[in-house]
C-alpha cells in the first residue's frame, strides 16, 4: 500500500481537510479568532462551497440549509459566535438530520483574543447535541469526519469543540482521499421539519431518545481510549490537556475521552470502579466532572485545577501535586521575564488613529466602544472607550444610557463607535431601533468606522468591501443605507483629512440631537497602504509631542546631535506615509519625503 502523504497542519487546517475528505459541500462561518482559518483554507477545494456570512446566525442557517438539502454541511464560529447563532441552533436540533451537520465551536480558555471565556460544552448539552474534543491536528481531522458520520447515523447535529491552542498549534496529519457522500435531496416531511406544536412537542422525545442511543454507542467507541498502568488512580481528560498531561507522565491510568458528551454511564462505572481515586483534568468548567457526579461516581477535579485559563504542563503538575499524586514538584521560573510590556496598538497608517486622537481632544467624556481593532482605543495612550461588551452592543447601550440620562435631565453628549464589520454583523437592527422614540435634544453621536474590511481577524471582506476593490462582491454603502432607513443627519468624512474630521466631530458632538458620522479610510494592512515616508525637521520641532501622542509605531523622541532637547523622529522604514503626524504638528515640522523630491525637481527644472 502506498504510504499516505503527510503534512504539518494547524488544527484549523486539519478541520478544513477533514471536511473536504468527508465529502463536505456547504461550509459557512463568521470570522472570529481562533477559528478564522478553517473557512479560509476551504477556498482551496473547489468541491466545497464556503462563505463568510454576515454573522454567525446567518452562517448557521446557511449550513442548516445545506444539511436540509441532504449534503454534508458545517458552520464554523468562535465560542461567543454560538450565542448569536443560538436561536436557530436550539430549534434546528429538534429536527432529524438529512445531510451530516457539524458545528465547530472555537473556545478560548485564557481569553487570548476574546471578551469572555464561556465553555461551549455546556451549550452543546443545552442543545441536546453531542461533542467531540480533539487533542491534536490528526484528531481534529479524524473527528471532523467521524462527527459527520455520527450525525447522519443518529440524526443529530454534532459539535466539534476546539480550543485556541488546538486551532493554532501544528502537528503531523496523514491525508486521505475525498469520499463523495450520497446526496439525499430535500426531505419534505413537514411534521418533522416545521417546528411548531405539535411537531415540536414530539421533538422533545425524539431528542431524548437520540442522546440515549448515542450514550449506548459511546460504550465501546474507539476514540475514548484507556491507558492502564499499575496504579490506584485514574485520570480522565480530553483535548489538549491530554497532551500536556502526557508530558507530566504521572503514575496513573488515563481515560482519554474523544466523545465528551454523552459519556457512557455503564462504561464510566466499569472503569472507575477499579480505582480508589478518580481525577478529572479539564479546562474551564467542571463539565466531565459534573457528568460523572450525576452518574454517582466519586471523583475530584476543580479542587485541584483552576476554573479559568489554560491548563499547561506546569498547572497540571501543580494540581496533581496538590492532589498528592505527584510527590516532588519542580520549581519553575515565571512564564516570562517581567520587562516592558508590549500591548497591541493601531498599525502604522491605521485610519482609526486620527479618530481617537480627535476624540481624546474632544468634549465627549463617555465613549461606548465595540468589538474590532478599534477596541484597542481603550488602551493607553488613547483610553477612549468606557464600555465594551459584545458585537454590535454599543448602539443599543448608548440609547439606553441616553434615555436614562433624559429621565434625569442630564444632557452630556454620548459618543459610540462601531466598525463596518460589526455594523453589518449585528449593528443594523440596533440602528433601526434608534429611530424608535427618537427625541429632539438627545445628544448622541454615532461614528461608523468604515475601514472597508473585517480587519481584526485578518481582513476578511464584508458587505461594503466591494465598493472599494474588485475582488469583493457586496457593495452596500453604509451612508446610503442609514439615510434610506430615515436618518437625516449622516455625514461622511475621510479619516485621514484630520482638520476636516476634527471640525466635523466638534460640530456633531456639539449638536443637540442624533447624528451619525461615517468615518471612511482603508485598513492600512489589508489595502497595503504605502506612500512615501514622512520625516521630522528637528530644527523646527518644538518637542510638544503632539505627534508622539498619536502612538504611531515609527515615531519616537530622540537625541539629535547638537540639539539639547529631545525631538521627534520617524523610522522611515516603518512609515507608510499616512500623514496624520504631520497634520497634528502645530509648527509644520513633519514633511513628506515626496514633497522634498518635488522641490528638488522644481530646482532641477
Amino acid at each position: 500500500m502506498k504510504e499516505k502523504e503527510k503534512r504539518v497542519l494547524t488544527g484549523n487546517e486539519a478541520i478544513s481537510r477533514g471536511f473536504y475528505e468527508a465529502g463536505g459541500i456547504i461550509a459557512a462561518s463568521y470570522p472570529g479568532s481562533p477559528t478564522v482559518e478553517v473557512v479560509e483554507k476551504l477556498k482551496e477545494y473547489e468541491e466545497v462551497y464556503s462563505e463568510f456570512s454576515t454573522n454567525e446566525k446567518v452562517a448557521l442557517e446557511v449550513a442548516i440549509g445545506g444539511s436540509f438539502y441532504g449534503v454534508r454541511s458545517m458552520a464554523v464560529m468562535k465560542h461567543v459566535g454560538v450565542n448569536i447563532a443560538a436561536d436557530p441552533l436550539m430549534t434546528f436540533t429538534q429536527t432529524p438530520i438529512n445531510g451530516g451537520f457539524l458545528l465547530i465551536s472555537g473556545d478560548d480558555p485564557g481569553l487570548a483574543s476574546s471578551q469572555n471565556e464561556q465553555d461551549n460544552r455546556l451549550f452543546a448539552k443545552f442543545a441536546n447535541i453531542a461533542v467531540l474534543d480533539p487533542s491534536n491536528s490528526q484528531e481534529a481531522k479524524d473527528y471532523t469526519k467521524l462527527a459527520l458520520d455520527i450525525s447522519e447515523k443518529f440524526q443529530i447535529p454534532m459539535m466539534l469543540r476546539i480550543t485556541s491552542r488546538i486551532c493554532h498549534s501544528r502537528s503531523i496529519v496523514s491525508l486521505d482521499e475525498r469520499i463523495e457522500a450520497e446526496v439525499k435531496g430535500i426531505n419534505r416531511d413537514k411534521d418533522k421539519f416545521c417546528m411548531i406544536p405539535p411537531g415540536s412537542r414530539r421533538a422533545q422525545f425524539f431528542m431524548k431518545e437520540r442522546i440515549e442511543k448515542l450514550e449506548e454507542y459511546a460504550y465501546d467507541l474507539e476514540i475514548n481510549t484507556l491507558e492502564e498502568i499499575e496504579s490506584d488512580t485514574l485520570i480522565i481528560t480530553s483535548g489538549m490537556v491530554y497532551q500536556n498531561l502526557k508530558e507530566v507522565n504521572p503514575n496513573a491510568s488515563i481515560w482519554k475521552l474523544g466523545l465528551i458528551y454523552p459519556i457512557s454511564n455503564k462504561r464510566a462505572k466499569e472503569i472507575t470502579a477499579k480505582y480508589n481515586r478518580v481525577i478529572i483534568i479539564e479546562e474551564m468548567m467542571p463539565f466531565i466532572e459534573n457528568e460523572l457526579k450525576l452518574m454517582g461516581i466519586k471523583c475530584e477535579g476543580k479542587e485541584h485545577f483552576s476554573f479559568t485559563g489554560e491548563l499547561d504542563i506546569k498547572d497540571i503538575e501543580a494540581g496533581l501535586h496538590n492532589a498528592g499524586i505527584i510527590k516532588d514538584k519542580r520549581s519553575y521560573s515565571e512564564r516570562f521575564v517581567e520587562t516592558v510590556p508590549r500591548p497591541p496598538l493601531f498599525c502604522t497608517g491605521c485610519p482609526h488613529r486620527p479618530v481617537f486622537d480627535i476624540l481624546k481632544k474632544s468634549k465627549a467624556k463617555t465613549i461606548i466602544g465595540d468589538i474590532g481593532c478599534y477596541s484597542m482605543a481603550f488602551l493607553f495612550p488613547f483610553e477612549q472607550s468606557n464600555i465594551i461588551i459584545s458585537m454590535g452592543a454599543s448602539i443599543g447601550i448608548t440609547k439606553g444610557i441616553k434615555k436614562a440620562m433624559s429621565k434625569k435631565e442630564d444632557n452630556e453628549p454620548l459618543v459610540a463607535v462601531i466598525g463596518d464589520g460589526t455594523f453589518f454583523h449585528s449593528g443594523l437592527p440596533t440602528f433601526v431601533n434608534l429611530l424608535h422614540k427618537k427625541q429632539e435634544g438627545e445628544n448622541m453621536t454615532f461614528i461608523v468606522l468604515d475601514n472597508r474590511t473585517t480587519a481584526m481577524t485578518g481582513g476578511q471582506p464584508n458587505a461594503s468591501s466591494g465598493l472599494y476593490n474588485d475582488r469583493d462582491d457586496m457593495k452596500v454603502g453604509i451612508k446610503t443605507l442609514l439615510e434610506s432607513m430615515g436618518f437625516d443627519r449622516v455625514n461622511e468624512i475621510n479619516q485621514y483629512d484630520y482638520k476636516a474630521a476634527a471640525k466635523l466631530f466638534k460640530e456633531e458632538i456639539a449638536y443637540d440631537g442624533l447624528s451619525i458620522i461615517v468615518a471612511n479610510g482603508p485598513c492600512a494592512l489589508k489595502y497595503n497602504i504605502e506612500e512615501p515616508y514622512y520625516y521630522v525637521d528637528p530644527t523646527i520641532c518644538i518637542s510638544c509631542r503632539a505627534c508622539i501622542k498619536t502612538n504611531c509605531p515609527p515615531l519616537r523622541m530622540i537625541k539629535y546631535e547638537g540639539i539639547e532637547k529631545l525631538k521627534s523622529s520617524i523610522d522611515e522604514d516603518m512609515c507608510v506615509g499616512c500623514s496624520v503626524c504631520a497634520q497634528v504638528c502645530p509648527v509644520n515640522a513633519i514633511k513628506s519625503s515626496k514633497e522634498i523630491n518635488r522641490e528638488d525637481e522644481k530646482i532641477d527644472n
Partner: protein
Amino acid sequence: MTTNIMLGGVGGQGLILMTKIICQAALADDFDVKSNDVVGLSQRGGMVWGNVRIGNRVYSPNIPPGEGDILVAMEPIEGLRWSSVLKEKATIILNSKRFYPTMVQQEKHEYPIAEVENLKEAFKVIEINAFDEALKIGKKQVSNVILLGILSVFIDIKVDTWKKAVANNVPNKTIEMNLRAFDFGVSIGEGYK
C-alpha cells in the same frame, strides 16, 4: 530527545511563517514535530510568540518550563521576555533591530538596554541586526530567513531540507534572494558552533 525552539517577536514580523517553515523542514527529515503560535489580538504590533518542538515523539506543543534549547528573538525586548523558558547556558539568536513599545514611545519607560546586554552573561547570545543585513542582501523581508539560517546550524535537519522548506514558503521571484539570506545566516551561525 526533543529539541525545543522558542520564538519571540512583534506582531507583523512574520513569526508564524517562521514556525511553519521549521515544522515543514522537521517533517521532511522524518521527525515528529509540534508547534504553537499566538494568533489574534497581538498581531497588531503587540508581543507575539511561537515555539516548535522536534523529536521522536512529541506530545504537547508547549515547551515544558525551563526546557527551551534555543530562542530566536526577533527583537531585543522579546529576547529578554522569553529567556525564562530556556535551559541554563542555552543559545539566543538575537535580532538587534528594535521596535519601541508604547510605554517607551510615550516616555514612561526606558528601553531596557542593560537588561538585554546582561543576557550575554547567562546565555550564548548570537547578536545580529538582521534588518540591516537583509537590506544589504536586497529586501527587509528576508530578515527572518537570515535568523533561520543561523538557527539551522544548531538543529539536526539537513541544509537541503531547510532550503526546500524556505523555497516552498516564499514568493517565487524571491527564492534566490531568500536562499542567499539563508546561506548568510548559516555562515554567521557556523562561527558560533
